[in-house]
Structures are given as structure tokens and as C-alpha cells.
């Protein structure tokens, strides 16, 4: 009996906590439904008499939102693909082979996370300008994939470490090459980690603003964060549009997270220690 009461107690606590957690997210939905000027109100209600979906209509019908969305999907898709391919192969090399420089590579992967990203902007720009990659998706994709890679490699390596080596040894006995053993045996069992890697690469590119702002100059090429920011003029933000845009931008990532949350728990290893 006491167990039931305890469960009930914990359950109600968690529900309250979840509601509090969700409030900021709901808050922005509330703003997106108001008019531009009504965002400074004292009402806590999310839906008021003045609320409407007008901002959403304007967003899709009168702005280039759909173009930005298409661009963002394109960039994120390529980045995700590149991220998964590169992280899965190099993570494997780091997990299974003891070669010269392995430790150096592993520590430098961690080191890359330690440098303040803002100071990388100027060199990025100079590099891309020299390579004539300004205003092209290629430049953006190279930067995004590479900045997301260190974490993804670490994460893949950690997961491979948990897979017994006997698995591919068996496959090798059956006459598989190293590479085909990797493709046929290891990759399929690593799907949770691959999903996480994909998710991280996607997130890194989907909502990135700062790098996109220096690389992309042609409005035709804008990605979502850039487009969204253009509603936010320094002295006259179109808040309704901005909030509506923010909600729409958040939807794909949220859906991804929700549908992949099963894998998140089993696939996110962040490089656990071998026992």
C-alpha cells in the first residue's frame, strides 16, 4: 500500500515539475498567437481573446519562410549524412586499432571542445574567403560537419567499445574483409549510437546562426536561423512573426528528439569507461 502512495507522490511531483519545465516552451507559443504589440501584458494566459494564428499565416504566405526551411533541410541533411559516415568510420578506427598517434587523436578531439568558438570565426572567414567558399553551402557544410564531429566520434567510439571484438572476429573467420565486417556486423548493432550521432549533427546545423551569418550572404541561400533573425530588427522586432518562426523551427528538432528518445537512453554513451 505504501508503495502505491509513494508512486502517486512521485508521479504528481514529476507532473508538476514537467509542467514547470514546459512553461517557457508554452510561453513562446503563447506569444506567437498574439499580435506584435501585445507581448508586454500582465496576463499569464496562453490563449487570450485577441489570440489568432495570423502570424503563422503571414509567416508562410508573405515571407520566404518556406525557402529558408528548404535550405535548412538541405544543409542539415547533408551535414547529418557526412557526420554519420565520418564519425562511424573514425570512431571504429579509434576503438579497435592501437595505432601510433591514437591517444593523441583522442585527446585532441576532446581539446577541440575547449577553445572558445567565437574566436574561430575570423579564421573561418579568412579560410573560406581564400578557398572561395563564401556564400556557398559547401563552406557551411564543411564547417558544420567538422565542428560536430569531435563529439560524434567520441560518442561512436564509446559505443563500439561496448561491443565485444569477438563479433567481427567471427565474421573475419567466415572470410569477410575488415571493411565488410565493419559494414555488415558492427554497423547494424550500433544503430542506437548512429541515431544519436545523426541527431547531434542535425542539431548542430539546424539551429546554428553565427557561422551561417558570416558565410551566407545571398538572401536566397538563407537558412532558418538567418531568416528568423531578419524579423528581429534592432529597433522594431516583429515579435509575433519571430515567435511563430521560432515555434516552427523548434518543431522538427522536438519531433526528432521525441521519436528518438528511446535511442537516446540506450545510445548516448559519451565514451563510457571500460569496466
Amino acid at each position, binding site marked *: 500500500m505504501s508503495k502505491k502512495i509513494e508512486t502517486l507522490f512521485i508521479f504528481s511531483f514529476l507532473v508538476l515539475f514537467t509542467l514547470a519545465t514546459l512553461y517557457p516552451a508554452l510561453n513562446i507559443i503563447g506569444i506567437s498567437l498574439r499580435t506584435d504589440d501585445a507581448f508586454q501584458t500582465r496576463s499569464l494566459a496562453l490563449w487570450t481573446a485577441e489570440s489568432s494564428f495570423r502570424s503563422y499565416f503571414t509567416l508562410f504566405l508573405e515571407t520566404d519562410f518556406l525557402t529558408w526551411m528548404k535550405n535548412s533541410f538541405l544543409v542539415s541533411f547533408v551535414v547529418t549524412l557526412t557526420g554519420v559516415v565520418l564519425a562511424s568510420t573514425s570512431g571504429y578506427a579509434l576503438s579497435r586499432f592501437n595505432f601510433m598517434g591514437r591517444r593523441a587523436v583522442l585527446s585532441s578531439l576532446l581539446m577541440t571542445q575547449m577553445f572558445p568558438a567565437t574566436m574561430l570565426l*575570423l579564421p573561418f572567414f579568412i579560410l573560406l574567403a581564400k578557398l572561395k567558399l563564401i556564400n556557398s553551402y559547401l563552406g557551411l557544410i564543411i564547417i558544420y560537419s567538422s565542428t560536430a564531429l569531435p563529439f560524434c566520434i567520441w560518442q561512436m567510439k564509446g559505443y563500439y567499445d561496448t561491443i565485444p571484438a569477438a563479433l567481427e572476429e567471427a565474421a573475419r573467420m567466415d572470410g569477410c574483409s575488415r571493411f565488410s565486417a565493419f559494414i555488415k556486423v558492427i554497423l547494424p548493432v550500433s544503430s542506437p549510437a548512429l541515431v544519436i550521432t545523426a541527431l547531434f549533427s542535425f542539431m548542430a546545423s539546424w539551429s546554428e546562426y553565427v557561422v551561417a551569418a558570416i558565410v551566407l550572404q545571398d538572401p536566397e541561400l538563407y537558412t532558418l536561423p538567418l531568416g528568423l533573425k531578419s524579423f528581429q530588427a534592432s529597433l522594431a522586432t516583429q515579435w509575433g512573426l519571430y515567435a511563430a518562426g521560432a515555434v516552427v523551427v523548434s518543431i522538427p528538432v522536438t519531433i526528432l528528439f521525441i521519436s528518438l528518445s528511446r535511442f537516446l537512453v540506450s545510445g548516448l554513451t559519451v565514451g563510457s569507461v571500460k569496466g
Partner: protein
Amino acid sequence: MLYENRKALREVCDKYEDSHPGININLIYRETEELRSNFQSAALGGSGPELIYGPSDQVGPFAVMGIIKPLDDLFPPSFFNQFSSNAVVQFQDKTWMVGDGVGNHLMLMYNKDIVSSPPENTDEMIKIGKSLTKDLDDDGIIDQYGLVWNFTEPFFYVPWIGGFGEWFINDDGSPNLNTKSNENAFAFIKSLRDEHRIIPKECDYETANALFKTGRAAMIINGDWSWGDYRDKVDFGIAALPMVSSTGVFPTPLVSTKGYSINVHTTSEKLSHTIDLMTYLTSPEVQLHYMRRLNVQPSSLAALSHPDVQANSLLKQNAAIIKKGRPMPVVPELRAIWDALRGEYQSVLAGTKDPHTAAVESQRKAIDQIKTMNLVIEPGVQGKFIKGLLFLFIAALGIIFWIKKKIYLRSFQENKFAYLMLLPAFLGIMSVIIFPFGYNLIISLSNFSLRTFKDWEIIGFHHFASVLTDGGFYSLFGKTIIWTVVNVCFHVSLGVFLAVMINRTLPAKRTLRTLLIIPWALPQYIAALTWRGMFNQEYGSINLILNKFFNMSPIQWLSQPVEAFSACIITNIWLGFPFMMVVALGGLQSIPKEMYEASQVDGASRWQQFWNITLPMIKPVMIPAVILGTIWTFNNINVVWLVSNGGEPSDLTHILVSYVYKAAFNLYRYGYAAALSMIIFLILSMFTVSFMRRSKLDAVV
């Protein structure tokens, strides 16, 4: 630039394209601050747009950096003569910009439905303001304000210094802040808020704008750019800022121009097209179009004498207001003055400094900052020595490689497969992370700054020394540690706590787990801006909730240093706990149930189980996550920058990374910023190594 202005610009460009086949005008739109930093980077890389349109105060820095062209030789003298003098922007005896309109100045606007005639002087303004600041429904909360404006920003403040007699800047560009006028103006604004209570306690631009537009403020101090926005919503009138009663002097708003400059990299055929386009964009014809659509005060003398301009009553009143103003200084030193003034002024408003001290301090700081900004350290012996050392280092690497060539080659042969698998990722990371890192290392040893934008040289460890001997660094470092420790502790404890709660038989377990991940899923900048809105003193949901359910008086979240820093921390805790929760959940699932059952048989309590089984079992997965989390939090600039609006109040909410950003892009101290980021890097490396040693986690990598 407002959306309507952008549209109008596009229209005139379309027209130009129609009459000039083969010419395509590409408009790239950036916000003022970003325009500056992006154009700087672009020009450094040798590219960027041919024509730059922006406010006149960017002329100074751009001209000093040598990234825009002087216009004197490109246009005939007759071209410049057709504009009113304040639209032809000169700096160091050369012309750098021609404006297509005059204005950007502050004035008093009033809602005609509430105020019948605007106040002539400040006493009247306070009187009207008092009678119009009302609590309509008697709930103790003000529903209508007499006056609102973005009063915490220096641009919106300095006109009052003029009203008290003196000016904030001398003709040679040096600051003039240690004056009685500055003190009086500080005290005056503070009295409007605290004594007369006719302005809100916290009021940024957005709040002021929204209050005025919805009829909840009788008067607003704002610029001519806002007319278009108000036109359809409020029946408003304009007037000069009211005369300061005690001095009998009118406040002096800054009058500037927005105009065109030419990128230094524009040459040959493109240059002649650019000149032609610029002539068109500043022509009377285009200016009249802007005047009709957007009520922009023309800069062209021909346009000014056009009957349509003469007949426009708003512009007529406006011209009189402009006469009371002073031209916006274009010297690069202005930034340093703004910055020093902003900090001290916000301290006065927060009540931590009295006006006199703040005036003295702002003068001292402005002079200091101008000195550091303009400082050019000449490369001495140390510079040559370092250069030699760098060269030797590279040579040594080459020689070592050459000697050990065979070993490397053999290792490659043996592990060809592994190296090949690693190669593509390695190349990517190499170019995108290692190259910039090396670049930064060199910059950190150089004198790269405003004055040496194009010809910087290696000077040695000066910047490292000046970072480490500056007391400010240690207080920033302390704040960063508090920031990191508090955040990570909350992330981990909240994460583990929630994970343990969820990891049992519960109804709707999966739904709860999924919903709790949402803060992680939301794009960070969106979440941070939402939180900033929620922290607003009067209209933010946090204070509203605290008031409604806990009956607490409103907290000034964003204008008091400790509160503002807490606001940043709260936001970041919210953003970060789901990651730790997910990692902890993963760890919990790997604990066999039998362990708990066995300990239950032994009569262990819940707490003992948690302490002796759960924690040790999830430790191996948590520790790498803690290391990563610490690094990420330490370097998280987004939250601090967005929630505190770039370090407000008075730059007291900075952590190391946000300060790096400010040093690099606000005061052009690239060398210094690079040195500081190298130091951050070293701090984090040392932390990681020692943390891993202590937790015997060498095996992690």
C-alpha cells in the same frame, strides 16, 4: 533597418535594375552591430559588398582600419555640394560617406488621445507625467505610464547631458564625462524613475515601444525611425525634448545620417558601376520616394526645396527639432566612450554608485579604454625572438618527422585500414579547427587591433602578460567558476534525481521522460530570448507568478548584477539538465535488478541503496558527461550574452568567453581577445587532465 525601409530600398533598386540591363543588385541585410563585425571580417578576407549602407558612426572605425575608400577623388566636387552638410560625412579631412537622409535623432512623441499639448520644459513634463501615470484598477500595479523610453542606453541618455549645459565629447574626440552636467543628468533620470515615478523601473526598447503603441504610455522618447511603425496605431504628435527647467537649455539629440560608403576592394569596372549606383541612390528622386513612403528627412538640397517636402508638416516640425541637435561624432573613440558611460550609468540606475563617483569613473574608464583601443605595440626584440622560435619549432617538427619517417611509414603500413578510416574526419577537423587554432595562437602573439587592422606584426607575450596582471581577469575567472560549478552541480543532481524518479514503474513514464527532454531540443538562442522576456520586471511571467502565488514583490532581474547573473544561471540550468538526465537514465538501465533485490534482503534502506549501488554504478557514465558538461558550460556564450543583453548591467554579468567576444568585436582588440581565449583553453585543458587523473579515468580516451 525597419522592414518597411528595406522594402523601399528594394523598390528603388528594382527600378535601377530595370533601366540598367545586365546589372544585378544584391541586397544583404545585417543589423548594425553585425554589419560592422561581418564587414570587418569580410574586408579582412578581401571580399564583401561593394557598397555599404549604414549609420555614420561606423565611418571612423572603417576609415581607420582602411576598409572603405575616401570618396573625394571618385566624385566631382559638385556632387557633394548638392547635399546638406551633415549628410556628407568627413573624418580626418576626407569624405567617406554620403547620406540619403538626415535624422536618426531623438524627440518626444506623445499620444494625442492622452496628452493635449506636449510639455515645454521638464517641470511640465514631470507634472504631466505624474498625472498620467495611473493605476486604473487599483491593484497596486501601474497600468499607464506618463513617459517611457529606452533610458538605459547611452544614445538615449546623452541628449540630457547637453540639456544640463555641457557636452559629453570634445571636438578632438576625447571624452568629457567628468562634468557637473553629466552628474545632474544622471541624477535627473534617476529621479524620474525613483522620485517622480513617471517611468517604468525596467524599460528596454521593446517594452517602451509596445507600451506606447498600445496606448499604455502617454509619451515616449524615440527616434524618427519609429514613425512608420506608430503611424497606423497611435495618433501621435512630435516635439523637441523638453527644455531642462533648471538650466533653460534644450537637450541636444544626436543627429546623424545613414548613408553609403564604398568597399576598399572595389576596383575597375565594378567601381564605376558602384559610383553610378551610389549617385542614383542618393539622388533627389530616390530621396523624394523615401520621403513620401517613410517620411525620411531628405539630405539633398534639391529634394528639400521640393513643394512636397515643404508641404509636409511633420517634416517641418522635424526640421526644427533637428536644429536643436548636434551631429553624431564619427570618431572610433565614440565606442569606448559609450561603453564607459553605459557601465557607470547603469550603476547609478542600479543604485550602486552616486552620480558624482559615476561621472568621475566614467571619464577615467573612457580615457583608459581609448588608450587600450588605440594602443599599438611596436614589435621589439621579443617579437623577433618569438618569430625565430616559431620558425625553429616548425623546423624541429619537420626534422623529427624526417628522422622518424621510417617508423611512421611502418606504422602506417601496419594500420593502413585504421588510418584510412580516420583520414576524412581528420582532414575536416584539421582544416576547420586546427587551422583556426594555429591562426589564433599567432594572433595572440601579435599587435592585431583597430590601428593595425591590415598590417599587424608578431610582438610576443604582451597580451598574455596584460591579461594575467589585470585584476579584472581574476574576478571574471571567479565568476566563470561560480557559473560553471553551480550549473554543473544543478545539471547533474537534478538529472540524476529525475532519472532515479523516472526509472521505476510509473504511469505515463515514457511521456514524462520525453517531455522533460524538450528544453534540450529547443534551439538555444530561442530559449534564451524567451527566458529574457520572462525575466522582465513588470511583464515577465516569472515576477507575475512569484507575485500571484507567493505574494512576492517584483524582483529587478535584469538590472541588478546579482539578480541578472542568477537569471542567466537559471536559464542555463533549465537548458542543461535533460542531457544529464538522459545520460543517467542510460547508466541506470545497465544496473542489474538483482543487485537491488540482494541488498533489500540484507535490509539496506533506500538511501543506502542509492549511495552504495546506484551512484557507483552510474559513475563511469556520468564522469565523462560531467567533463564534457563542464567544458560546454564554461564556454557557453549564448545564454549569458542573450539573457543579460551582452553583459548588462555594467558588464557585471560577463563570464570569460562573453568577455572575449566583447573585447574582440566591441573594442577591436583582436590580439588581446585571442590571448584570452588561449588562456581559457589552457585552463580547461588543465582541469580536464587533473580531473581525469583524479578519477583514474585515463581509460576514457
